[in-house]
């Protein structure tokens, strides 16, 4: 949409936009307050924090940010074993994010491409199956899924757990399916006449055209995976990611001085990369993430 030109707008509409502007400012304050409060308290001592959470620190203790990397430890939920260090959890967060997003996107992309571009025997049934899986509320499969993961020896096993994340029958499929449908067939048909194989057409002609959509989905999923604590809490307890580590740290306060403040500093560090990533790619995400109706 083009930028709003208030000059040409009715007086009534001007009042409405002003009302919304005030509302947005209020909401922004509401959303920013916890972040600023965290930032402020991350520089205090534990004593200062427990005395008053709203005052400025007497002395700004920047060392808490360094201590996140040197002192932050999370005792395993079982109570035994070596505590996990921040860098270890950061590494776990990174590999879980990369593997999870990659396998999921590959799976969704292949399925969406096949169903959007080819009419093969069974394609209609398969499409209906995806819609069915997305719109039928199957509740409480968690225990059965856990049992399955145990049977397949996937618990605490980075070599196999990715299989669970590689589902293509999800929301990413619905977005990608619509996108593939919208890509013109003329290029791929010309390439086919020139003798290109289906694989070459997919890699060299179609994928470059849907890269913005794939990147938008990947970033959206990345924010979810980065913050997903249940992955580590249930399936990868020996490989805690930062989200789960932050949860465990609450029970490990006795290991450090100024624990609340180090926790706040860790919270700021943990969410900073993802906030920066979103701020930089916001337009890409918002312009490419959409879906049409669900027929099937």
């Amino acid at each position: 949409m083009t930028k709003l030109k208030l000059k040409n707008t009715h007086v009534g509409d001007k009042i409405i936009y002003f009302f919304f502007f005030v509302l947005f400012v209020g909401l922004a304050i509401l959303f920013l307050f916890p972040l600023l409060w965290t930032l402020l308290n991350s520089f205090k001592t534990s004593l200062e924090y427990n005395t008053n959470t709203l005052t400025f620190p007497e002395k700004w203790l920047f060392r808490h940010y360094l201590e996140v990397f040197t002192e932050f430890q999370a005792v395993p939920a079982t109570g035994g074993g070596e505590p996990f260090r921040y860098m270890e959890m950061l590494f776990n967060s990174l590999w879980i994010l990369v593997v999870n997003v990659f396998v999921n996107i590959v799976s969704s992309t292949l399925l969406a491409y096949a169903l959007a571009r080819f009419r093969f025997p069974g394609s209609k049934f398969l499409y209906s199956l995806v819609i069915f899986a997305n719109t039928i509320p199957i509740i409480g499969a968690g225990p059965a899924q856990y049992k399955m993961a145990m049977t397949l020896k996937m618990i605490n096993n980075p070599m196999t757990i990715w299989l669970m994340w590689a589902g293509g029958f999800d929301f990413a499929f619905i977005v990608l399916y619509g996108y593939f449908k919208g890509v013109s067939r003329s290029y791929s048909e010309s390439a086919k006449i020139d003798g290109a194989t289906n694989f070459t057409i997919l890699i060299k002609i179609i994928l470059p055209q849907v890269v913005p959509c794939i990147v938008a989905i990947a970033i959206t999923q990345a924010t979810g995976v980065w913050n997903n604590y249940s992955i580590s809490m249930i399936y990868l307890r020996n490989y805690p990611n930062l989200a789960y580590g932050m949860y465990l740290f609450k029970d490990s306060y006795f290991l450090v001085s100024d624990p609340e403040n180090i926790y706040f500093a860790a919270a700021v560090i943990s969410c900073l990369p993802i906030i920066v990533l979103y701020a930089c790619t916001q337009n890409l995400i918002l312009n490419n993430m959409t879906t049409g109706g669900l027929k099937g």
Partner: protein
Amino acid sequence: MKVFDKIKKNYTQLERRDFLFAYLIVLFPVLQFMIFWFFVNISSIGLAFKDSMGKLTSANFQMVYKGFVDEDMLGINLGASLGRSLILWIVGEGIIFPITLITTYVLTKKIFGHYVFRVIYYIPSLMGAIIWTLLIKEMVSTKGPITQALKAIGVDLPDKAKHSGLLFSEDTAFLTLVIVRSVMGIVGNNAVLTGAFTRVPDELFESAELDGAGFFTQMFKIAIPCIWATICTLLTFALCSIFTCDYNVWLFTDGTGRCETSTIGFQLFNLTYRLSTGNDSTGYGYPAALGVTLTAMTLPIVMVGKRLLERMSENVEV
């Protein structure tokens, strides 16, 4: 063999090659789906009818029934949990979703500061549930700024809330969660709705403006009808979570669901978590039976809702 002969007869070599390629690329996603969705769900139904020794039984469903009329084996009343899940869902989808729709539309009009506002509204999602809930917990604790502010403006808090924080009193805990859910919910679906709104051609708004259409006319007569299919899709997904939305009750209450805050979503996550820690007294059967019961309750609602939404889509004129 007959099928292959039929394919050979009805399709050209080029088409057959296309089919082979399509089958090859869908093979992995389909296998994954069969194992981790289809088989898991079938196995979940099977578990619901078995006891810990693998014998057929209806005891798990009896326990679920007992949970609804009295308390389940973890001391939670499922009927009350269901009611709370429903309240959270109605607040989220009935009240907050329309607000999200309107605010997203206004932001796509690119009002002053829209870029900054969008980043700020996304912060709770970007910070993640663990960090966000732990921060909110600190803020509504006894020494937290929200509790302090409420005391300062003279709100008469219950004793438990005064001494231990808003999440420790039956009178304030669930209300706090509803308010947190309402505020956080405003950013939900923002990305998909923005994507849909930005695809509405500018020419439609420009000609409407020339015809003297104001803000509300443009929104309700042009923008919303144009993205109606997207709205229906989001509402269909929302219907699927009618009884299961938990909004991190598990994290807010340290896995206890204390002070009458437990929801069905909380209970389902809690049961899976307890299984994973080996700290369960229920086995697989009870959670599976609870899941089957809830699926049976939700299914007709979703089917009717989806059909109604589809019918509404057909009637929408742009």
